[in-house]
């Protein structure tokens, strides 16, 4: 952090200023002039929270994508299909058993198995051939998409939120001040907050596992130099299979989350593949903290954009990507 400030004093000042403005916008009671200019604070706060929670969902999808790429240089453009498959499994299990938690478990395990099959049957045969992997996974995603359309039809499905998660919760954030001097607090859906906390926990657990455990050390060593790691006697193919299973399983979990937040339907696979592409391009390919930062930025930009400049919301996301590419082509938090 201090090195960042030393090396890019102006940029860190800009970032600090942006964070300060955002914090003020969230915490302070808005003066009337501001409310007239950009609308009510409640709308703004809702957009910010939606953006942050959407960022959590993007992180779940993108972290698996970036993990697989980071370690194995495997370009899995069928990652969106894994997300959608997880969503359908989640829907199926939760309607069949009525258990929301079970839906997550089943989605993780089944999608992880698909991931293992992908790694063993497809990627192992074309290691180091980026473009062939891309082509093959594009072909696979077309096949998967059509198989899922065959099995589940074109309907929208929504995973049922359990009863204890339904309903709003009052947050200690003021949205407005009544004329009587009484503060109005923000109401926000509890389900989204819980799911967001879940994704933060998963993210922190992943970071700890990667940075504080032996397996994580092996994985990080594999990212840096695969051949030397293999030469030290580590069964690298086994590590690959495990990481692929984890990455795919995360996409499966994200599918259930997406099915709870929004809905599951054909076409979501491409949407989330593109979202994870943009997130990891912004954050830096192969970096878990990068995926977290990228997901937060893209989620916030999408939601704030769709509230304040609805026509150009997608352009804002895209502009962020262009800006990052222009200033730091390797991504914000990439090491290289």
């Amino acid at each position, binding site marked *: 952090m201090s090195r960042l400030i030393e090396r890019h004093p102006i940029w860190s000042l800009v970032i600090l200023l942006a964070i300060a403005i955002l914090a003020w916008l969230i915490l302070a009671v808005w003066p009337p002039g501001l409310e007239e200019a950009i609308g009510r604070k409640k709308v703004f706060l809702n957009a910010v929270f939606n953006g942050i929670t959407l960022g959590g969902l993007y992180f779940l999808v993108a972290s698996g994508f970036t993990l697989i790429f980071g370690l194995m240089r495997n*370009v899995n453009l069928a990652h969106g299909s894994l997300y959608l498959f997880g969503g359908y499994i989640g829907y199926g299990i939760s309607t069949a058993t009525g258990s929301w938690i079970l839906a997550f478990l089943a989605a993780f395990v089944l999608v992880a198995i698909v991931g293992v099959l992908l790694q063993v049957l497809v990627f*192992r*045969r*074309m*290691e*180091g*051939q*980026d*473009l*062939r992997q*891309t*082509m*093959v996974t*594009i*072909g*696979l995603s*077309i*096949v998967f*998409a*059509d*198989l899922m*359309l*065959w099995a589940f039809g074109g309907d929208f499905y929504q995973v049922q939120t359990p009863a204890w998660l339904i309903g709003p919760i009052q947050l200690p954030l003021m949205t407005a001040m009544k004329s009587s001097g009484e503060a109005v607090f923000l109401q926000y859906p509890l389900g989204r907050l819980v799911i967001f906390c879940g994704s933060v926990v998963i993210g922190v657990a992943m970071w700890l596992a990667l940075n504080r455990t032996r397996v994580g050390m092996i994985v990080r060593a594999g990212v840096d130099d695969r051949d030397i790691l293999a030469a030290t006697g580590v069964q690298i193919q086994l590590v690959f299979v495990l990481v692929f299973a984890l990455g795919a399983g995360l996409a499966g979990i994200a599918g259930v989350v997406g099915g709870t937040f929004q809905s599951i339907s054909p076409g979501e696979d*491409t949407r989330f593949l*593109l979202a994870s*592409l*943009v997130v990891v*391009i912004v954050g830096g*390919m192969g970096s878990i903290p990068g995926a977290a930062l990228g997901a937060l930025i893209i989620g916030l930009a999408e939601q704030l954009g769709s509230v304040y400049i*609805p*026509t*150009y*919301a*997608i*352009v804002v*996301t*895209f502009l962020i*990507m*262009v800006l990052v*590419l*222009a200033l730091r*082509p390797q991504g914000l938090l990439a090491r290289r």
Partner: protein
Amino acid sequence: MSLIQEARARDGMLAGDAVRQPAVWSVTEQPWAWAVAALLLIMPLIANGFFLIEIFGTTLILGTIALSLMFLAGYGGMVSLMQLTVAGFAGYMVAVFGVSGNANISLGWPWWLATPMALVLAVLFGALGGALAVRTEGIYTIMITLAIGAAFYYFTNQNWAIFNGHTGINTVATPHILGIDWRMDIAFYYLILAVAALCYCAVLYLSRAPFGLALQGVRDNPRRMAALGFNVNAHRIAAYAFAALIAGLGGVLQVWNYRQISPGSVAVERCIDILIVAVVGGITRPVGPYIGAFIFVMLRTFALDFLVKVGLDGNRFRLLIGLGFLAIVFWSSDGVIGLYERWRKRGQLAEPRKPSGGHGHG
């Protein structure tokens, strides 16, 4: 590693410079290619309106758009997924500047003003996208161009002022010159054929011209080319601009063909279709995209009947396409052309060559 290098490595052609002549598999070297050209010329005598436009016309348009991808990927080593987006942009610009049913959007320029304007803007768009994409390599290029394509699709879907949202722009007027309505089947077919032939020859010519050779040098070894004093990025961006011109021509023909354009025609799936067309046909030679487009259009048109006849759901057309694409990428990285060439070589040498082995090398 570029696709073409992979294809050559698999063919065992990296042995020496002697066999590394530009792989231009031109019409003139193939006796039966003249027969195909003649057949295309007299096609209106044989085929009825449906076949003429729906099969051959669409094939040539799709092939031309895929040709622009082939040019970038085959000679420049840059796989761009935004070529359909450039084509769609040109189509939209024709609709916006020209005459259409949406009088509040279209400016109503005559075709000879609107079309060049659309092409110029498409070239600018392609060059800008290219300038962004050349900052990256290989898989990143695919991702960024895919992201550009997706952004354009969502933008057209949301923007009502220029692109008229998800309804798109309808009843786009087509040119009348010399008293001929160029959208009449036969006239339009010859127009498409002429444009396709022009683009094909331009790519063929450019692949042997100094610019094309430099581009292939950049593809094979950018650092050496930079050391020789070539501006690597400028060559790449120029390649994007040229490809955008070809794609733009295809897009203009496309919008004249359907007389309308909507976000659905620039959707992400369509962008990927272009990649499929180019790869299935063969991405190392200019004729590949046209072969791929023919296969694609035939499948798209007749797969439904075929599937129903075999007793399957006719809606599984995309499954068929996907499986066919997978098979091609698994067994021959330079598509149908590559399969044909290998088969022909085997016949000529009359010795059993190792069947394209080494999938797992590396």
